């Protein structure tokens, strides 16, 4: 096999990696908001739930989480009489989202708490409910604060998608392994693999930067 023939299968894998990254970043961001807001909720039960989620998923290894969801969860399900056999794609997206969501939650919480107390007092004086304050005053000001950290998390997430190859999901790393198994041409295939990830990370970084600029323009929009 000539090295140019690697492109086809690698690009198929890259497409899976892109889908994984995009989907799990979106779900992860949603989880991050839920847990980040939950952690500063006044409701003790909600807070405890959020803290548990954050600590468990930040405190354990992503690969352990992935294997657990893929190998252990079905057995747990069987014991309970529920079908918890997740397809690799679902298990992969779940593990990645849950993991990045837990890291993102701390970012969201930090950004929310960085909004000045004056803003809360003004909202109180205008008789906003706590929920209205959160969504109309606090979060719009917190989002621009979060963007740089979210950019880093997205790149982290892109890199982490490589781990799903270990549960036989046909992503970029998996395809590369498949070709290497066949051709034993490690140098070429891994060099191409590293460069592809690097290129994807650069594009992702650029996109997050654009988003960041958009979002901060919306904060202090200069008509």
């Amino acid at each position, binding site marked *: 096999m000539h090295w140019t023939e690697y492109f086809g299968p690698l690009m198929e894998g890259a497409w899976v990696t892109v889908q994984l990254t995009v989907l799990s970043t979106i779900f992860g961001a949603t989880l991050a908001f839920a847990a980040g807001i939950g952690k500063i909720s006044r409701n003790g039960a909600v807070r405890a739930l959020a803290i548990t989620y954050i600590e468990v998923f930040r405190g354990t290894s992503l690969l352990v989480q992935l294997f657990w969801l893929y190998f252990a969860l079905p057995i747990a399900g069987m014991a309970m009489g529920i079908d918890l056999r997740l397809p690799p794609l679902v298990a992969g997206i779940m593990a990645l989202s849950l993991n990045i969501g837990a890291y993102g939650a701390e970012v969201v919480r930090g950004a929310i708490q960085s909004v000045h107390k*004056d803003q809360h007092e003004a909202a109180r004086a*205008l008789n906003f409910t706590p929920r209205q304050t959160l969504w109309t005053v606090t979060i719009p000001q917190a989002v621009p604060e979060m963007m740089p950290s979210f950019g880093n998390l997205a790149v982290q997430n892109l890199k982490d998608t490589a781990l799903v190859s270990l549960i036989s999901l046909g992503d970029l790393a998996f395809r590369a392994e498949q070709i290497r198994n066949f051709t034993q041409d490690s140098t070429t295939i891994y060099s191409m693999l590293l460069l592809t990830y690097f290129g994807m990370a650069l594009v992702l970084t650029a996109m997050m930067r654009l988003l960041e600029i958009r979002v901060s323009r919306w904060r202090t*929009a200069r008509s």
Partner: protein
Amino acid sequence: MSEDIIRFDKVEKRFGDLTVLNKLDFSVKRGEKVSIIGPSGSGKSTVLRILMTLEGIDGGSVTVDGEPLWHENSGDGSLKPASEKHLRKMRGKLGMVFQHFNLFPHMSVLRNITEAPVKVLGLSKAEARQRGEELLELVGLADQAQKFPSQLSGGQKQRVGIARALAMRPSILLFDEPTSALDPELVGEVLNVIGKLADEHDLTMLLVTHEMRFAREISDRVCFFDRGKIREEGTPEELFTDPSEDRTREFLSAVLDQ
């Protein structure tokens, strides 16, 4: 007595070991314009913040418009601590203008003013917009509606702050040193707006300020606070020209010297 729109009865307020309000008795009549003056740390802001329900109290009672502020009647006639619902009802009677304006930086001037009427009072967008534009007219900023706070001068920001508070149609308006964060040349435009309000509206106004000349001009009554108590009060004439307490005299001479 029934005329009192605001009443503090032996109100106590502590921060840790520090007693900030010490059995304070204080009242304001409907439509009255009252200025509060006094040295730093004497509890002036605290009085406003308690009224705006930004701080709770540790003893005594506060009545606004005949109803207890920090308590509400429980079924059996006794008082229980106010619920959030009660506080929201009471807050509807009050508006506040902050020293540092506290505008929402991510909203245009007009949206700063219309957001609460729409979300809290349930006005339609069109109604809120109309009300907002009238108020911007009143504070002389009709042409700045689409700007963002970061594009305004301090004096303009504070006038937006006043319009924002007025948009909620409060019966009582609280001002906490509305001009002390402003460059000297911008103070005048804000005082003008407040003066106009005082003249033309029957709003009850409670104003913490260091602008003695202005306090004298617009107030029906001036209260001199010292260490969590009212040391002396009276008409501006009485208090400024012939204070009866040494402490007041001392304070006034220090302030007017500057």
